[in-house]
């Protein structure tokens, strides 16, 4: 009875939230740095809830464009972070695009 109600409650959205929470618990246990933890949790989130490839690419290009501006005003650390974010969204865009094409073929 209880099992049934749990299964009914576990629709796809809720399962995704649980999985993301698990991802966060895992990196906390492994004592990763804040930046690496955020990237990992976001990665899992975008894997489960894909965003549009074009949106991911837009974010990637904008952050990449801002990065040299920051370098000009000698904010090196922040520029590095932005470059990492840019690369991260590039990877997300690539993965979603591959998945999209694969599902279209099927």
């Amino acid at each position, binding site marked *: 009875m209880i099992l049934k109600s749990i299964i009914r409650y576990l629709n796809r959205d809720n399962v995704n939230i649980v*999985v993301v929470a698990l991802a966060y618990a895992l990196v906390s246990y492994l004592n990763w740095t804040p930046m690496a933890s955020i990237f990992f949790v976001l990665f899992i989130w975008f894997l489960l809830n894909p965003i549009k490839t074009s949106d991911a690419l837009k974010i990637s290009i904008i952050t990449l464009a801002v990065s040299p501006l920051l370098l000009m005003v000698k904010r090196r650390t922040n520029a590095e972070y932005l470059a990492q974010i840019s690369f991260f969204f590039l990877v997300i865009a690539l993965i979603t695009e591959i998945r999209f094409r694969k599902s279209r073929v099927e």
Partner: protein
Amino acid sequence: MKIRIEYLLNALKHNQIYLIVLLMFILVFLYGKNIIIDEDNSKPTECIAVNDSNEIFSIDNQSTYFAVKNIFNSSEGDYYRLKFVAEVTPDIRRSVSNTNEKGPEYQYVNMDYPYKIETIINSQSGEQKKIGEISIEGMERKYYEYIFKTDGNYSDVVFRKFNVNDLEKVIISNVGISRLDISSDTQLGELTSTKQSIVMDSEIPELPNNNPMRHVSLSTGNQQVGQLFEASEDYLGGVYLSMNMVGNGGVGDYTLNLYMVSDENNINILAEPFRSFRFQTSDFDKFNLRGDLYKIPFFFPLEKGKKYYLSISNRSAVTNRSNNLSIGIWDSKDQNVLYYKGKDKNYLEESSALFPIFLNSQYYNGEKLTNNSLIEDLGGGKGRFHFSSLSQPSDLLVPEYNLYAGYDQYIKAVTFWGEKKYSLDYKFNTIYPIKRFRLNLKQAMGLYPKATVKFSLDGTTWQEIENQKDAAAPYLFSQTVEMSENKTTSEIYVSISPKDDPNDFANKYLAIYDFELGADLDMEKK
């Protein structure tokens, strides 16, 4: 049953992404430990001194800088304290140029201007930032430190000559860097000053005249020139003397010998010396100060007020009339006595040839600090005590006074002849209460008997440190101790003695090296 499996497979097919996520979780769990970035540097709470370098660096007239690579890893807004010991050895050419009509004249006082070096921090990508500039005045070893704030990711420290035309040689050692737990400049004023007890030299003695009165050659076999002196401080740190190489200077080892003297009028200089230090003519460049003046390091703890006899001898060297060492001798005003042995007879006269260098212990509020140790305030109520042996003869000055301790130049270890009732004892005073500490030391391998290493927090109850059962380092002793809340102490005693072995009565000789002790301190309690 079959339907159920089909249903399961179908469900999996439509939820492949969860399988991929599961696979990622497993991989991260198994291998994710390697992705921890900057772990060593994230918090300055660990008591292990990872960021200290025992290497000795020098800048001479051939080079203008040197870099200590990967000594730290900073982020924006971090505060660091850079610590080092520096000394300047004047260039020989400069002193030779100081000639007048009477011949070359040596300047035994300081240089005519302070020698400047600047320190720069470097990042992996080649960014540079100057953090400070120091003026080294005088020729003694001195401790320097300063605090700086970083604006990005840096990893190397570079020491550079300020004036590239300076010919002097700078020797920099004990380079260390520690991250402070502060976030603004206002907190800098709250830090207490660093208490260091790096072994320093006494000043160069004032010589009666600028040039020695005459020279004595160590040309025939087993000859020595020596000096009788009374110990005025706790330690002997070396000797100043004027010497000249005749021909090639002889072949083999010259020795500096130390004898304990009970009867001033009857010194048996043929007996085995109490302690000796061997050196060769090829080492002379290392010891040269300027002109004919040399400083030879020779460390030994002394008993204040006792008389000693220090001599230089050619007992283990092969010399003759055209290849030998001649020692400068001065007229003495203050009744120093010089003995030297000719082929068959001893001479006794009032003059001086060897000038012993004395070192003293450092004190803080009346408490004696452990030699070569450092107590620093890291901010936020945290502090650190750090001691590590330097693999140099001055390591012998760290243990408590012990007649059976020595330093082995060849294996670079503190040695100890320990009969059953004797032990090599160390006492570390951290001034502030200890929160946790870690101790590491290694025993030289080979024919030595196994050591028993014990530590105590009060000097009465002792706890033995187990020998690590590690095949790679069979003679490593290591222990980390967490202090409980209600127990406060600021002293650690370490005692090393040969393990009682019923089958081995003769060999009680131990050699200890890589001794390191780091402690986290509570700076608020005192």
